[in-house]
């Protein structure tokens, strides 16, 4: 699964197979990071906005 595993070989089979796997995992990971990060940011902005409204 990782290049530091003892049975890892730098050959076409590993490039294609693990390339596909890490490609999919990267998309899922990046997608979820974006969603969670943006949700946290949006929530903070909304809370800030509501606090400002209270002050006014």
């Amino acid at each position, binding site marked *: 699964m990782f290049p530091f595993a003892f049975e890892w070989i730098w050959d076409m089979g590993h490039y294609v197979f693990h390339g596909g796997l890490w490609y999919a995992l990267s998309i*899922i990971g990046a997608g979820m990071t974006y969603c969670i990060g943006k*949700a946290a940011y949006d929530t903070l902005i909304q809370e800030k906005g509501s606090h400002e409204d209270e002050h006014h």
Partner: protein
Amino acid sequence: MDSDLIPKGVQRCSLGKFLLWISACGFVLAIGVYAMILCWLKGLNQTNMNDAYGFALWIWADLAIIALGGGAFFTGFLRYIIGIKELKNIINYAVLIGFICYSSALLILAIDIGQPLRGWFIFWHANVHSMLTEVAFCLTVYFAVLTIEYIPLVLENRKIDKIPFFHNLSHNMHEIMAVFAATGAFLSFFHQGSLGGVAGVLFGRPFGFREGILIWPWTFFLFTWSAAAVGPCFTILITKITEKVTRKKLVKDNVIELLAKISGWMLLTYIIAKLIDTYYWAFHTAPGMGLTLAQFYTSDPGSVYGYWILFLEVVIGGIVPALILVTKFGRTNKIALWIAITLACIGICTNRWVMVLQLLAMPVMTFQSWFTYFPSWQEIATTILPVAYGAILISISYRYLPIFPQERELNPIPGEEAEVETVEKEEKKELATGDLSPATETAT
């Protein structure tokens, strides 16, 4: 008691009735869990698997529910990649069914490996030349995708949605759902195919062996194709069963008919490819290995597999439902639709049975006879377990989550018609603007 958790504008049965139903399903689930624990504690000697049947009932169940759960990836592909807007009214349920199917498949595999503590070996020490490794990787990652697709639905629960972070998270996840759906379609293509590839590459077992392109035997493509064709049929079937149980109309006919039409054409093209494949295998591949078709469908002692199973798979479970679904009458007539979707599901399950169990039943040495196998009660109980689990998860999701965006409109509660009209207007506006966000946002 739990009315605050139930979506607005819909009616549900009393909590007592609901708990009684869950308890009944829970009893079946408990038997399955007991059998599962027996298998984990005592080992695979609890099964009737043997040297001839290394793959048995569990693997058939695995292949069958993965194929039936294919509705999630294919409906997601049609909705988010192709952009068929009408399918937004059934995509939630397709995702839920897919989630149940894939989690069940993974659970069965966790029992089947016999040594669950070593389950991670297949990931860590991946054999890149194995179709099964590809299946394990894609299955697990696709299950993660399905979980991501299911999370926004959970977050849309009335109580959870009031928490701003979860509301925003759900909204953001819907916004980029096309990315997850595309990843899911990519993963599904490969693991559905590789499940077929497992049988197709077995050159020592002429019943399953097929020629193909590069490293992929024809069964690779046939499995993906059949899952995409029948998966939506299973989604329709479960929707129809849910409608019968709840005595409500949950999805409009035009949505069901559209999905049935797409499924029908997929099934028709699949069955044509399957017939060509069967013909080539029967009259070229197998004779090239010194075997005849009659030897595969023999009536030798110990064999229950006659030509009837080929007829059941290809004609009854393939050609008949395909012809019903491609015709307008077949799709619009309720009885014909029920027959077609049921037969299509039976057909795909038979196909998976044949490619797992008939394949192993056939002797590979001239001095051997057909191998027989009957599953132990532990195998049967753990195979029924997913059905009970699925019924429980569907019941809970239906009760507390806005699974069916059209439910309120189709089942108005007296005094709330005005509110429904507003929902309709919002939906029309959304369709006009081509907004990809879920219908549930407007319906709740």
